[in-house]
């Protein structure tokens, strides 16, 4: 308890000064607040905003560790030190410490930069406007390293975080007021600002960019090339990974989004702890399946021939779309962000369905943006309030009608 008391004393000491939000934030991050509301009637719940955020972080930690192993694994495959495995999820080639340390030292700086810059801005605005530091960045800060390519330069990440937090959130009034998901906004900023670091075959496997430089300088080495499956399909190349590899996540991609298996476990955790909305998760999966199924039928009916540049992406089994790219990650962790999603239950179905539907649409029809889920979620973020509006209005109308029938 000593730490708690000390923190509380510090908080009291700095009360009213510019620094008070900082101590307040640390205090409430670690402990329950000392003072509670005294007047009015309240429903007491065990979870507050902070607890909610922490649950999401817990659900993300397995992905983070998997991403560290996968980073080293992909690097070792590319350099030829490890053979590609097909012996199930617990293969020793994947879960080796040397894999882990490579990923650890690459991903740790991303996490540090994300949190230091993001929380720095939060604290700055809190001190400036004299309110408490809000918890909103806790989840964003861990999401950001998980959805970027592993070799992204740290200064780019810092610039993007500044943009995402200031323009995406603080401008609108801070946590809970933002229209767009800040983590996705940060990724979208990186994607449009520095496309050479966000797509192509050089950014997904750590070491590929340096290797390219060494070769350019005259070193006799094989180039490392690690195209994501979506990128390969968009260019009509052969896919070398098995479906199980895709499901387990032994494929190149952004840091934390490759393992559909672990995302599924995270989804179950979020559903059972009632943090994430199962309606949104389910409906976006359904939306993706429907769109994928339509494309499969278009192929089956022979409307599009093999010469079409959309053929390869349309031709993959409709359910395989769920395993590829960031779709699963986006649908489970991003679309369900309670601030930017639809609030009404009916609205959630529509919102989720359209996210899935549009993700696959963008994925197939725009090879320049193989990761459609990012853009689909951002688009639907914008429409979420409109969806809610019509759902609520529809409800009002229905009840008015009922009232009329009764009075007549």
């Amino acid at each position, binding site marked *: 308890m000593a730490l708690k008391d000390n923190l509380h004393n510090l908080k009291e000491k700095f009360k009213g000064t510019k620094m008070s939000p900082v101590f307040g934030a640390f205090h409430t991050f670690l402990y329950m607040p000392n003072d509670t509301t005294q007047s009015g009637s309240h429903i007491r719940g065990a979870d507050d905003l902070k607890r909610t955020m922490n649950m999401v972080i817990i659900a993300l930690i397995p992905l983070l560790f998997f991403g560290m192993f996968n980073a080293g694994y992909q690097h070792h495959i590319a350099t030829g030190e490890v053979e590609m495995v097909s012996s199930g999820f617990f293969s020793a080639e994947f879960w080796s410490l040397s894999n882990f340390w490579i990923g650890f030292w690459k991903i740790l700086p991303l996490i540090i930069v994300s949190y230091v810059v993001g929380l720095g801005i939060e604290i700055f605005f809190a001190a400036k406007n004299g309110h408490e530091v809000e918890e909103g960045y806790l989840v964003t800060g861990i999401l950001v390293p998980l959805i970027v390519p592993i070799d992204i*330069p740290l*200064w*780019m990440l810092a*610039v993007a975080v500044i943009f995402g937090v200031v323009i995406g959130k603080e401008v609108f009034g801070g946590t809970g007021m933002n229209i767009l998901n800040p983590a996705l906004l940060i990724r979208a900023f990186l994607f449009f*600002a*520095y*496309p*050479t670091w966000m797509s192509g075959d050089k950014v997904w496997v750590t070491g590929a960019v340096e290797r390219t430089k060494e070769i350019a300088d005259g070193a006799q080495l094989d180039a490392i090339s690690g195209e994501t499956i979506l990128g390969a399909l968009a260019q009509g190349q052969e896919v070398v990974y098995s479906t199980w590899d895709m499901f387990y996540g032994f494929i190149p991609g952004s840091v934390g989004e490759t393992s559909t298996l672990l995302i599924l476990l995270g989804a179950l955790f979020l559903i059972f702890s009632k943090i994430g909305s199962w309606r949104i998760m389910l409906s976006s999966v359904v939306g993706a399946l429907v769109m994928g199924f339509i494309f499969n039928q278009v192929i089956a009916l022979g409307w599009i021939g093999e010469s079409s540049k959309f053929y390869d992406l349309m031709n993959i089994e409709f359910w395989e779309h769920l395993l590829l790219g960031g779709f699963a990650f986006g649908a489970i962790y991003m679309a369900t962000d309670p601030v930017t999603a639809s609030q009404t239950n009916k609205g959630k179905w529509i919102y989720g369905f359209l996210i899935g539907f549009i993700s696959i649409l963008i994925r197939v029809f725009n090879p320049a943006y193989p990761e459609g889920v990012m853009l689909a979620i951002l688009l639907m973020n914008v429409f979420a309030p409109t969806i809610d509006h019509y759902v609520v209005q529809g409800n009002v109308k229905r009840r008015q009608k009922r009232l009329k029938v009764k009075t007549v």
Partner: protein
Amino acid sequence: MGLLSKKDAKLITDPLADNNPITIQVLGICSALAITAELEASIVMSIAVLFVLSVGNVVISLLRNIIPSKIRIIVQLIVVATLVIIVDLVLKAFAYELSKTLSVFVGLIITNCIIMGRFEAFALANAPGKAFLDGIGNSLGYAVILIIVGFFRELLGSGTLLGIQVLGDPIEKTGVYAFGYENNGFMLLAPMALVTVGIIIWVQRSRNTALVEDH
């Protein structure tokens, strides 16, 4: 300011800051977003608007007592259209490359809200001399924002200013590029122009809180 009376000087200085057509009245946004990817285009666009607005204001002001108010919009359009065509032809004759960059947006000066706005709000009710000053002031206010936005978008987006590589060569990796810096391609797209204008509006209103609108 011996040359102008205090009131006249205000016609020029007011639109530069506290009554800026872009950041306060939020007019003429379309062109501010569309052509500010390069500083040069911003400057040329500013000069074109300066010409059209100041001359147009004088013409409308001279005609103000004989225009029937029912058809005044048509008359205003004809005046703008004439002036814009002059600008367009001059650009095509003397700066063909630039006129290609500006493309349709020179023609679209006709629909620039600032111009019609000033005709309606000022030139129709004031003497030619005042209308001229008002035209100069408002187009300078427009120019200031365009040039600020153009400066940042070209500097951060392409690493150049007026086509000169001020940050070093991105391909040879000289200057700041040697440290791993890279151009921000997003700055060249229209959304970042909107964000840049938004930041200017933010800075301006937080420095002078009297400008913040009530809701």
